[in-house]
């Protein structure tokens, strides 16, 4: 696909749980609160559905930052899902940091269905951070490069 912009556009993958964060993103949309187009959302039923493999895969395929959003602790639609996700992500992000993917490139945020403003703020902020860090070179599967 052709390049849209000459300058570097980081790629950000956002995993959003269906019940809070995806709805929060919808609210950001219906409130016309913009955030960078390079944030791409993947809908999952709950934050606990986010397998560390998905995140590794994203980094392998050239994502520059990955953010996982879920309901606030205690508010998970499935009661406890986000607690598992939170612990899992802490471990994963530590490991990624060790592998050379800076901690700033990974993030967990709790966004409720009513927090459209928070959603767009978080995305803007995160995208700005990733822009600052620049392209992510580690973990890229070189076989994927043409």
């Amino acid at each position, binding site marked *: 696909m052709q390049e849209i912009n000459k300058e570097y556009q980081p*790629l950000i993958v956002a995993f959003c749980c269906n019940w809070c964060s995806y709805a929060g993103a919808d609210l950001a949309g219906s409130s016309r609160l913009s955030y960078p187009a390079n944030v791409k959302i993947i809908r999952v039923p709950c934050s606990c559905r986010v397998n560390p*493999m998905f995140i590794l895969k994203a980094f392998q395929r050239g994502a520059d930052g990955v953010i996982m959003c879920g309901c606030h602790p205690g508010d998970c639609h*499935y009661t406890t899902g986000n607690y598992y996700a939170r612990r899992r992500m802490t471990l994963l992000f530590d490991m990624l940091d060790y592998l050379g993917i800076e901690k700033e490139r990974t993030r967990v945020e709790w966004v409720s269905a009513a927090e459209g403003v928070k959603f767009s703020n978080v995305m803007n902020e995160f995208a700005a951070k990733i822009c600052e860090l620049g392209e992510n070179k580690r973990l890229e599967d070189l076989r994927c490069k043409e």
Partner: protein
Amino acid sequence: MQRIGVFVCWCGSNIAATVDVKRVAETLGQEPGVVYSADYQYMCSENGQQLIKTAIKEHGLTGIVVCSCSPRMHEATFRKTAESAGLNPYMVEIANIREQVSWIHKDIEEATVKAIILGRTAIAKLLLNTPLTAGETGVTKRALVIGGGIAGIQTALDIAEAGYEVDIVEQRPTIGGRMAQLDKTFPTLDCAACILTPKMVDCAQNEKIDILSYSEVEEVKGFVGNFTVKIRKKARYIDEKKCTGCGICMSVCPSKKGLNEFNMNLNNRPAAYIPFAQAIPNVAVIDPEQCIKLKTGKCGLCSMKCEAKAIDYTQQDSFVERNYGAIVVATGFKIADLKYFNEYGYADNKDVITSLELERLMNAAGPTKGTLLRPSDNTHPHVITFIQCVGSRDISGCGKPYCSKICCMYTAKHAMLIREKYPDTEVHVFYIDVRTPGKNYDEFYRRAVEQYDVDYIKGMVGKVYNENGKLMVQGSDLLSNEQITIASDLVVLAAAIEPEPSVRKIATLLTTSIDTNNFLTEAHAKLRPVESPTAGIFLSGMCQGPKDIPETVSQASACAAKVIGLLAKDKLKCNPCVSISDDSMCIGCGTCANVCPYGAITYVDKEFRLGGGKTEVRRVASVNEAVCQGCGACTVACPSGAIDLKGFTTKQIMAEVEAVCKR
């Protein structure tokens, strides 16, 4: 190989103004697996749906991708469309190019490219979709209403009217809620008790309604149509079945220092008490904090005098467990804490009161028997100043950002009632704006100004301080641009309202969402205002947002209609996106069962063929599809990767990740 159709919606100009829909349709039409693509003004309209149906039939499509608004909006619509054209409804994927693209991006090129990527992602997922069929479950034909105020009462009465059983769980000793505390109601000025208490009696007499007062919801399990709820009945130290409500215990109780919550703590009540004369159930309760017998073991007067032998000092909290098909939250509101508003002197001056306290002071059953007297010295106040928007519409972070909605009207009511009863009283009202939308509301407010001569001053109050027994209200009059000070005898604060604090715990128990102000979130602000986003949970009254009584009652009835609609069904379709375990990979470790919040996974011994005529019995996980809610916790926890979630399989999500990452 699948034959996929892509349908790009313009959503009028909502999408088409920012996204080049034709280019999206053309580009996605070239994707492997896609055999047909089209764009149309309104895909969700009759004609749009027809276009989809025709395409499915004519091109033999095996799956469709609709690039449109959020799946939370129309996924269900397009699934039905697909189904009516003979396609499995789960062979539908939505690319959200409205909320995630056209509404937030301005640059057409950028937006179009993103729309294409989202479309590709949906195609990548759809290529791995398999047809799913939904199972069915029964519906328990009984509803639970949490909260026994006017909202809960009206909802319960309407549900019972339709012939279904309803339980009301109320945390206080009686139903009636806030409305029972009110004196008169706007805009008709009829007395609150006169219109509320007959409804309370109806609840008590209706054989379909069971009132569990002085009770709290403790635990909620299950899902729409099949909830199991554990309710704690707090110890009242009175046998409800024996108590006749005669009130002898109240009159003999020597401990009289308990604060009377019903009268907003303006006077005291005995340790053994009935909150108010028309309480339902008309049964006493003993306050363990105040009861001398319970605290020291000495006393027991009430038990000696009680003819019904209803007093039981050994009573403990008890639990009941019941099944429900639907749950209604009607937990109501309270007056917000004024601790950040020291400038009004509420904490230091007895004669600075909230409107709800004034309500009690004017009520014939209140602490002053309806004569308006100052709390400090029991004299008649001659100058009364009302301050509006105390803690409402406050963006400083100390108060609430929202308008509490009812204050303008009740202040007009108070001002009018006071001027009517005590014409020699001077009444001033400091307001920011007067908001009176509603039938006969503005007329009502104008009567206060024109007929009753209430002095409305546009401006904010800076501070209230005590000078020689007078409350000096210092504020600005914005219209004359002057600083003014009014020496008053009584100051009434129209304090912000906030949701009853127990709603937080209840929202957590019901796994339904709450907004930043602790109001419960409705499924759709305009189109589904009485349903919560969690299936089977409904919202009635103030727990959802500030409302006056007429609005609360209409919402309560609307809520009942929704509940009745649900209970009238014999079967509900289950969510087919549930977990499935691959026996050949499962090692029976038990991890998945540990993380499952629903207990949907059990272990069974199964016999497996090993070849050569030999068999082996192994323990493997088995998912109960009716109980699984499809969160996916087990899929990630499973160390051997044996469990997957239908509709959101690991492969599907991996494919999505790859698709969004493709540059």
